């Protein structure tokens, strides 16, 4: 039987506020355990939560970014369960009335096409603390620094049909939250985490199959691997005639397998009810308008502009607009260099991203700044250097810093554009290659185009790469007759 995969994602994003969602404690990552836990975060008797307006504003930004309705009135609810790192015995979240309603997001698939994914809702909630199980002599330690950190939980529709689509969606969320500057989305720090709901149904069936939820997947790679492992498991089960039981599972990246944490029957009854310590959250139209006015250009708008104004291809535009920092980098390169955007796009997406990938670096940690790269491309644009020399200088910039102009100056890499100097080199090459000259002169036009490459290469080599390639070509063509 052929199966259709149905995937929905719940993405938790840590909002980059200075203080926690219901207390004044700092949210800095990596502090000593329990140094960022106030009376409120500890759930002391008698304490009360006060909502952080900054977290609300960030949630509104996200809602506007996915073209969703911002609820004029939303309600915080208590999700009750016992766990040592949940100090109050309940998590303050939003349940029936979330702040962000139905919206959507475009994702780009590998074949370059795009697909719209529905987003059911997004709501504000507080994070729990962390249980530490190592180094406590058989006991567990509790670190409540993270307790009360603001989260936005983004719930998608079950609109994805493959692990690759799920990854593309997760990446689109990641891109959007960074554009909106509401979170750094750093998955390695747990600042963005994905729960993946996966079910299978026979091709053509309209009812959904029973889903299992993979909890807390913490990288794009693992989103893909975990979903594929889960698909494989469910397919085996279904094809062996066994029914899928609703369950929460975890993904083990070492074994590349999912395993069940708890089944529906063991699931908690969270006993949600409106938190009586917090009034309903009211968001006025003026607030929404004010936040809307503060929104930056979003990925979709940027892609459009890159194509319309900078004449980039759809592909280049999507690659460069995928990340706000990358897009800003690219636009700085264009501005500084004055070079053609296409040239800049190639350099950023091929040379720069290639080097970053090889060294496992993010764009914000690039050793070559946009100003440095712009300075380099400026010298290609004004014919001071060739593309080949530029690559050499790029490597120099990457390893030792400095500016392209300094390197060109100190290493004497300025392109040779003096006709007589190039002619002298060409004459030498022709003189020392009689066989090749004879071959060339005997050949027809079509073959000559191939054969001339040898002379170009020899000339460039003799000029140490500095001769202007276009002039070399012209002079050779003339001299060889």
């Amino acid at each position: 039987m052929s199966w259709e995969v149905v995937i929905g994602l719940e993405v938790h994003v840590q909002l980059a506020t200075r203080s926690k969602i219901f207390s004044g404690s700092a949210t800095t990552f990596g502090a000593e355990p329990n140094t960022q836990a106030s009376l409120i975060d500890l759930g002391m008797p008698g304490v009360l939560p006060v909502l952080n307006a900054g977290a609300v504003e960030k949630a509104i930004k996200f809602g506007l970014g996915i073209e969703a309705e911002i609820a004029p009135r939303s309600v915080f609810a208590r999700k009750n369960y016992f766990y040592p790192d949940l100090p109050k015995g309940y998590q303050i979240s939003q349940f029936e009335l979330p702040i962000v309603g139905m919206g959507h997001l475009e994702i780009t698939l590998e074949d370059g096409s795009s697909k719209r994914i529905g987003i059911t809702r997004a709501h504000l909630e507080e994070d729990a603390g962390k249980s530490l199980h190592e180094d406590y002599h058989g006991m567990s330690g509790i670190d409540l620094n993270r307790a009360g950190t603001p989260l936005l939980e983004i719930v998608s529709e079950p609109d994805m049909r493959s692990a690759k689509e799920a990854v593309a969606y997760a990446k689109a969320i990641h891109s959007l939250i960074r554009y909106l500057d509401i979170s750094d989305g750093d998955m390695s720090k747990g600042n963005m985490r994905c729960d993946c709901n996966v079910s299978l149904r026979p091709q053509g069936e309209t009812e959904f199959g029973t889903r299992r939820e993979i909890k807390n997947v913490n990288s794009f790679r693992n989103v893909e691997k975990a979903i594929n492992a889960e698909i494989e498991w469910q397919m085996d089960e279904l094809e062996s005639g066994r029914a899928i039981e609703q369950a929460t599972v975890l993904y083990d990246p070492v074994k590349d397998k999912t395993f069940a944490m708890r089944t529906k029957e063991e699931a908690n009854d969270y006993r949600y009810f409106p938190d009586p310590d917090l009034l309903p959250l009211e968001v006025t139209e003026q607030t929404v308008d004010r936040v809307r006015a503060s929104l930056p250009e979003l990925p979709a708008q940027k892609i459009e502009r890159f194509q319309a104004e900078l004449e980039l291809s759809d592909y280049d535009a999507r690659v460069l607009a995928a990340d706000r920092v990358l897009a800003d980098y690219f636009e700085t390169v264009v501005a500084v260099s004055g070079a053609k955007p296409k040239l800049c796009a190639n350099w950023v997406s091929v040379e720069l991203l290639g080097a970053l990938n090889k060294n496992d670096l993010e764009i914000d940690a690039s050793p070559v700044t946009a100003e440095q790269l712009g300075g380099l491309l400026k010298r290609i644009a004004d014919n001071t250097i060739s593309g080949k020399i530029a690559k050499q200088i790029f490597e120099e910039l990457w390893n030792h810093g400095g500016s392209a102009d300094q390197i060109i100056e100190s290493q004497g890499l300025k392109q040779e554009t003096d006709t007589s100097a190039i002619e002298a080199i060409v004459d030498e090459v022709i003189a020392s290659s009689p066989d090749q000259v004879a071959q060339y002169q005997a050949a027809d036009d079509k073959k000559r185009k191939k054969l001339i490459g040898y002379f170009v290469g020899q000339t460039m080599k003799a000029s140490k790469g500095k001769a202007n390639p276009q002039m070399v070509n012209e002079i050779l063509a003339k001299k060889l007759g």
Partner: protein
Amino acid sequence: MHNQTLKALSEALANGQVSSEELTRHYLERIAQHDPQLNSFITVTQEQAMTQARAADQHRAAGKATPLTGIPIAHKDIFCTQGVKTSCASRMLDNFIAPYDATVVAQLAAAGVVTLGKTNMDEFAMGSSNETSFYGPVNNPWDTDYVPGGSSGGSAAAVAARLAPAATGTDTGGSIRQPASLCGITGLKPTYGRVSRWGMIAFASSLDQAGPMTQTAEDAALLLNAMAGFDHRDSTSTDIEVPDFTADLNRPLDGLRIGLPKEFFDQGLDAEVGAVVQAAIAQYEKLGATLVDIELPNTHLSIPAYYVVAPAEASSNLSRYDGVRFGYRCADPMDLEDLYKRSRGEGFGDEVKRRILIGTYALSAGYYDAYYLKAQKARRLIKNDFDAAFQQVDVIMGPTSPNAGFKLGEKAADPVSMYLSDIYTISVNMAGLPGISIPAGMSQGRPVGLQIIGNYFDEARLLNVAHRYQQETDWHAQLPAAFA
């Protein structure tokens, strides 16, 4: 000295007749002498009180006194007091030293009051008799075989026996007014949102409200002046101007429209209590008020709805007592589940456990709509009744409690009959309105309270109405003979 009102003591302090140090020592001695018969205090902060008293005297000498500077009072043990045990009368918090002051405590301290100690109460404020305390019951000073009411039974008994000139209390379903009624003192529950809940250990967050327990309405006004006000740390506190509650105390009552809800005078009301209340109302007529018969047709919903909403909130509010970070932890837990089960099983008393179970049940999947949501709808109906009534009247009057109290142990085995003793007070919490109980007479040697209910944030009028009555009568000035 001790049978003087807070107002009189304030004047005595102001004109130098007495120092705070003398006053404080006097009350500490009274506590030492008489509290063994009452058990109204859980903690007496003797040394701290004397230090505070001396500081208050210095403050006064420096010309920086407020009307409350140097006045000793007691705090219900539900308010967090920095560095002092704050137990909520529970074994669960028997070892809990609060690391911070409740807003009520901090504001009163800023006004110069001296804290004598922390008063006994029903465990986590759950009870109407003060019998659920881990520290044992409190006895009623008027008859030590009787309960003082609850949950603020310690505060009520302490003020009635003049072991403190005044005390703080909290009221979730009648916990200030009912013990005030049973002990013959004045107890005000302000409008929900008038007084900050920060640092007040939560029972039912949407109902809990702190208020003063005093000899007179005038004293209550003085204390409320320092207790009330918006607090940015409590999102449910209301950002509304706080008047000087003493300013209008003497306003004449001519033309005051008093609503008498027929539901408050039904067959559940003890005849003698009813007669006392009627006599008090007659006194108001003499003062120029007019009486209006009104109906609060949904009153009968208040107890069943309350016993869904309050336990539901409590079941969640009390989840933090898990033996992990503070409070009681069972000995030698085998694993996490054992830690939870035994810490909570051993740390909480029966009534608390009963309400946690009720609340957990009411919020459970499949029952939420039938219980919690329905109770919230009932709550809306109750509020609507009052809103309609206040279109016609300025205040509503009736009994505070259906009887003049009951004996220790009498209702302990019958929770429902205990719950019914709050029939006239609970609807006021459900609507979030202010209410006051003032002494209005006696029944078989025990005090009977008159309840006056006001419109939202109309505490000044309640205090005015209560004060005018207290100018004409002396029920509030009576002191149980054993504590004279």
